[in-house]
């Protein structure tokens, strides 16, 4: 279980990284924390020509705040985000979700942006970003573009990043005072891939629920705040809409049942929570 041969580029700056991507495009796999990529390399599930290591790009290790979002550079690890008090206060949904992401040891290397790019359907960070309606910033030699998350995560482990582009940051909307958030997950063991993960937020007028672990990408639904007798129908429609699938850990039916149950607990919590 050793990686296959590859050429290794370690960039010191964003420009160097972007140049490699421009020159070599889809022959390159970008490595930030490597917690997903290295496991795949060790099993030879992926055999890229070039590994571009961006973990040494100091200028990408930033967490900055504007009035509307908290921005994580591509070098920010999950541990750094979890240890940032501003994250817990300004993006509470992310603060609630991060303890479910892997284990302490993998969070010390794994990055916020890397998890989003990897786009595993059971991952928590992409689910949070989708539920909050955040954005991804990508750079290429020709410039920069901002991609709303629903247009970035386009399929199973597939993002809209073009082969010559580097994801440089992820923007998480900052909580408004009237918003309430909730995150819960069912997994076989703590730290395992989610069977069903649900992220919710409510601002008193609209309720948004994001479901992970069921469809190929996070599935987000929004309703005007639901009356108690509307919740079950809304969740049932969502559950059947997503359908679910069988695997060795859970059946499709089980996933639907969890959507209904966890979803109901979440919606009640975020709609009724008075602070």
């Amino acid at each position: 279980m050793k990686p296959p041969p590859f050429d290794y580029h370690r960039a010191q700056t964003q420009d160097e990284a972007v140049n490699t991507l421009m020159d070599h495009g889809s022959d390159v796999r970008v490595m930030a924390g490597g917690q997903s990529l290295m496991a795949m390399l060790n099993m030879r599930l992926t055999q890229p020509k070039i590994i571009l290591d961006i973990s040494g790009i100091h200028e990408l290790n930033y967490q900055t705040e504007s009035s509307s979002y908290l921005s994580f550079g591509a070098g920010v690890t999950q541990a750094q985000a979890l240890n940032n008090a501003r994250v817990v206060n300004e993006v509470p949904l992310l603060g609630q979700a991060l303890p479910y992401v892997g284990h302490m040891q993998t969070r010390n290397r794994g990055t916020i942006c890397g998890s989003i790019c990897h786009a595993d359907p059971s991952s928590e960070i992409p689910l949070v970003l989708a539920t909050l309606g955040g954005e991804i910033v990508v750079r290429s030699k020709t410039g920069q573009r901002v991609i709303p998350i629903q247009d970035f995560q386009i399929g199973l482990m597939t993002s809209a990043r073009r082969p010559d582009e580097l994801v440089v940051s992820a923007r998480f909307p900052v909580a408004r005072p009237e918003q309430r958030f909730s995150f819960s997950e069912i997994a076989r063991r703590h730290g395992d891939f989610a069977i069903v993960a649900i992220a919710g937020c409510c601002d008193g007028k609209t309720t948004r629920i994001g479901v992970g672990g069921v469809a190929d990408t996070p599935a987000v639904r929004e309703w005007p705040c639901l009356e108690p007798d509307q919740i079950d129908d809304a969740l049932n429609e969502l559950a059947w809409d997503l359908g679910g699938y069988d695997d060795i850990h859970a059946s499709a039916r089980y996933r639907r049942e969890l959507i209904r149950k966890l979803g109901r607990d979440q919606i009640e919590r975020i709609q009724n929570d008075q602070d």
Partner: protein
Amino acid sequence: MTKIDRGVRYPVSCRLNGELVHGYAENRLLLSDFLRHEVGATGTHVGCEHGICGACTVLVNGLPVRSCLMLAVQVEDCDVQTIEGLALADGSFNELQSAFNQRFAAQCGYCTPGILMTLQHLKNQNRDFSEQEIRDALGGHICRCTGYREIIDAAMDVMGAGSRQTDD
């Protein structure tokens, strides 16, 4: 920009347990294999090579990481601490190792170095830990021999509330 072609044995040096070590590594050589085969520090064990069992855990720049998910070439100029660095200057066990010994916390010893490195990281934070915090920190480690009770007891002896001595 550093470029290391495939198949080339590249010089790598890092501070291992406080001492500068040098070796050679292909770019795809895992840090775990570099430590074990190139440097000869075989205390770091390899269990699964996909980042789940925790046996390969070492400290890089003070933080516990999976050495099977890092490349040797990534620790150039870094501080790496392994199980070989825990003993005191005279070769005797440090406080955590002694507690493990007292509590029968090691049986086959395969998971032990990885667990001790995670616990050493906690100890370096110089505060008390609850049993739940210790369990959560060790959630990324698998042991097949002990059932974990003695391991947690040993950790609580050293870092549980009311346990800590003044610095030594």
